[in-house]
Each structure stands twice: as C-alpha cells, then as structure tokens.
C-alpha cells in the first residue's frame, strides 16, 4: 500500500537522500528536520532511505579492489597511444596520406582532360607565334588570344573532374573514410596545376619569341583562369559539366570581345577588360567560389536532376 502525496502537502521526500548524505545547505536541512518532527510519512521515508543507504554502502564495502597491475596497463596504454606521436610525425603521416590521395586521382581523371588541354594549348601557342612572327600582329592581341585559350582550356578541364557522369568510381570514393571534399580539392589542384604548367610554358615561348614581359602575359591569364575554373567547377556540381563549359565560353567571350571590338558592345561587358586580369578582386572571387564548391556543393543534388 502507498500513500498518495497530496498536491498541497509540503512533504520533503525528494530531499531525503541529500538530507542523509549531508550535502544539503543548512537552512534546507533545518526545514527538513523540522518537517520530519511532525510528519510520520516522511519519517518512514527517511528510515527507508537509511536502509537503502546501508545496503548500498555494504555492497560498496564488499566490492573487490581492482587487480594490482591496473596502473602498469595504464602506462602501457599511455605509452602506446597515438596522441604521444610528435607533431612532426603527425604532420608527416597526414602529408603522406594527402600525397597518396593526390597521386591516385591522376588515373581517375579523364585522359582526354590531360591530352585535350595539352593539344589545345600547343595549338594556341603555335597560332599566337604564327600571328606574331608571320602576320606581324600586335603582340598584345596575340597574348590576349593566348590568355583566352589558356583560361577556357582550364575551365573546360575543371568542368569534368567530379560527379557521377565523370567518375565511374564515385560511389566507391564516397564509401571510403577520405572526405570527398579532399578528393575534389586534390583533383582541382591537379588539373589547375597541369593547366598552369602548360600555360606558363606557352607564355615563356611567346615572351621569348617577341621579347615581351613574361609577368604581363602571366597576369593576363592567371587570375581569369582561376576565377573561370572555380565558376565552372561550381556550375558543374550544381547543374552539369556541359552547361558549365558553355557558361565559361559565354563568360570569357563577353570579357574578350571588347578587346577586339573596342567600344562596340559596352552593354555586354561583364567587367572592364583591365579588371579581367590578375587582380586581388579576381583572386578573392576565385577563392570564394572554390570554398563554396569544395565545402558546400558536394552536398547538394544537381539542379538539373
């Protein structure tokens, strides 16, 4: 049988464990004590709690101690645990892992990206050299053509580095402990690095051919290449690779046309041609797009689906 606690009654049943273990503050303890003097129900509760305490304390008292070699086992675990590995070892281990991930992306990217980029840049470089040396075009126009080719080539390659359409083994990649963001970032670095090397080589050849400034040629394509490639990567993740390539072509055309048709199409101009070069703004925008693409876009279903 039990006695239901009346709602209005100020019983102290829920305070009794704290009362008997002595952790209650003095005023509350005094209140409980005063209540117990005249409340039979709470006195029964108190004696019950005391009995439970005795049983629990007896159980604890007869609990065996742990064996004597616990501390030795603890030292062995501490000495063997990976957290003791020095920062240098930790860095080397992760650097090696990243390098392996990076290296193993090379065969996973379409061969046509490597071959196509090299052929287009080679053809572009030949065309520019021909226009300078044989047609005696203005070197500035020829360099702009090289910048256009380098930028569009890189952007087109980047559009095909990620996604189910471009990676038959994507599901396997997704099931590995390595983050897909790291995988995608490695591929981005690979293709961008490759296109950078090709474009740099072409720029050196062109600069040597007519004695121009290598840095000026670099400035014409480096920033635009990064920005357009980052935009293409984002669009390829959100919509699709071919859409991204078309968008890159349109965007690049809008920037380059005014160089050839001066003041003929100012309304179509996305930015002043002088700003469509390597500038802090262009680089900042490129970094923003890359951050978005790497950290956010892989989680999103394609809009085209």
């Amino acid at each position, binding site marked *: 049988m039990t006695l239901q606690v009346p709602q209005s009654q100020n019983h102290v049943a829920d305070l009794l464990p704290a009362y*008997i273990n*002595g*952790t209650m503050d003095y005023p509350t303890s005094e209140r409980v004590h005063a209540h117990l003097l005249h409340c039979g129900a709470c006195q029964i509760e108190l*004696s019950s709690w005391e009995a439970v305490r005795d049983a629990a304390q007896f159980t604890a008292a007869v609990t065996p101690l742990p*064996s004597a070699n*616990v501390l030795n086992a603890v030292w062995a*675990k*501490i000495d063997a*645990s990976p957290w003791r590995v020095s920062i240098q070892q930790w860095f080397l281990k992760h650097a090696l892992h990243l390098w392996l991930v990076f290296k193993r992306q090379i065969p996973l990217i379409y061969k046509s990206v490597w071959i196509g980029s090299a052929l287009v840049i080679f053809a572009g470089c030949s065309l520019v050299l021909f226009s300078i040396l044989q047609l005696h075009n203005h070197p500035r126009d020829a360099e702009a053509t090289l910048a256009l080719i380098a930028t569009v080539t890189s952007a087109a390659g980047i559009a095909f580095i990620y996604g189910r359409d471009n990676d038959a083994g994507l599901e396997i990649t997704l099931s590995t402990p390595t983050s897909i963001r790291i995988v995608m970032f490695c591929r981005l670095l690979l293709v961008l690095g490759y296109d950078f090397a090709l474009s740099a080589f072409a720029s050196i050849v062109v600069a040597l051919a007519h004695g121009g400034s290598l840095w000026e040629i670099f400035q014409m394509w480096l920033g635009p290449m990064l920005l357009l490639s980052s935009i293409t990567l984002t669009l390829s993740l959100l919509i699709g690779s071919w859409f991204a390539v078309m968008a890159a072509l349109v965007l690049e055309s809008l920037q380059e046309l005014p160089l050839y048709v001066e003041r003929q199409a100012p309304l179509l101009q996305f930015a002043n041609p002088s700003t469509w070069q390597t500038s802090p703004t262009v680089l900042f925008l490129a970094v923003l797009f890359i951050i978005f693409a790497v950290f956010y876009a892989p989680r999103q279903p394609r809009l085209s689906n």
Partner: protein
Amino acid sequence: MDKPADDDRQLVKRIGAGDRQALSELYARYQRLLFNYLLQLTPDYGLAEELLQDTLVAVWKSACSFEGRSSVQTWLIGVARRQAHNTLRQHKISLVNESELEGLAAVGPELEDSTLASIARDELVEAFKQLGAVHREVLVLTLVQELSYEETAAALNVPVGTVKSRLSNAKRLLRALLVTREGAGR
C-alpha cells in the same frame, strides 16, 4: 572519504604537466570509488577493470583541460561514465532497463506506508544488485559517494530533477523487487 579539494586539484594540475607520480597518487585515492562505480555499470569484473584503465588514460590526456569548475571526484566520475558509455555502446549494452522504466511510467508521486528498514539487509542488498545500472549508479553516487544532487547531475550530465526522479524510481523499484521476491518465496 574526505580529502582536501585543493590537494586533489594540485594532483590534477601535476598530472596535466605530465607527472606520473601524481596519477599514481590520484589512483590510490580514488581506485575503490571509481571501481565500485564502474561495477554498477557492468557486472563484468574484467570489463570494469578495462574501463578503469581507459578512465585513467583519459584523465592523463585531459587533466590539462580540467578547469576546476567541479570537484575532482565529480570530474573523475564524469570521465569514467563517458568511457563506460563509449565502451558499453560498442558492446551493445544499454544502461537503461526499458522494462523497468515502463513499469514506473504510470505511477505518480507517492509515499510508502511501511519502511524498508524492516527488511533484512541481505535481502535489500540482493534487491539492490538486481536494479538496472541507471538506478544503481544514482544510488551509489548520492548514498555511497555522498555527492550532492548538483554534483550527481553534473557527473551524469542530466538535470537535477532527473537525479531526484531516478532516486525516487530506484527506491520504488527496490520495493517492487522485494515484493516480487517475497511473493515468489511463498
């Protein structure tokens, strides 16, 4: 049981600085308390000892981040509990006995009209051992280790109200177990 709190904190500080002797001293002080607590969570002596080792390794690793907001005893219990939960989850062992809790759901607050003091201690001890881990641990923390409600709540990472209700439920379950045993004995 009473130890100077400042002394305990000094020990933890020394552990944080990599002093192995300090960990040995802390272990000597709290080995019985911690082991008894862990044995409430698992009856397996070997597993409890493994959990005790893991607790000490975790203490060694995290001592430098101990800020002294709670007592060292409460902190140790919290570390031990976290280790136990992680390991028991891997072993697919639940600390909560669902059937025990279901039996309590429909019952409101109540006082008993007979005291458990009239029950023989051995019977109470046997009933205590049959309680689920979640109820045994709250009884041990408050009645054996003599933590306050606030300290118990901090160690268990639950509100103070939950500590009170678990205590109340634990005692009602003890009575129910004793009634069942008495009925079975007839």
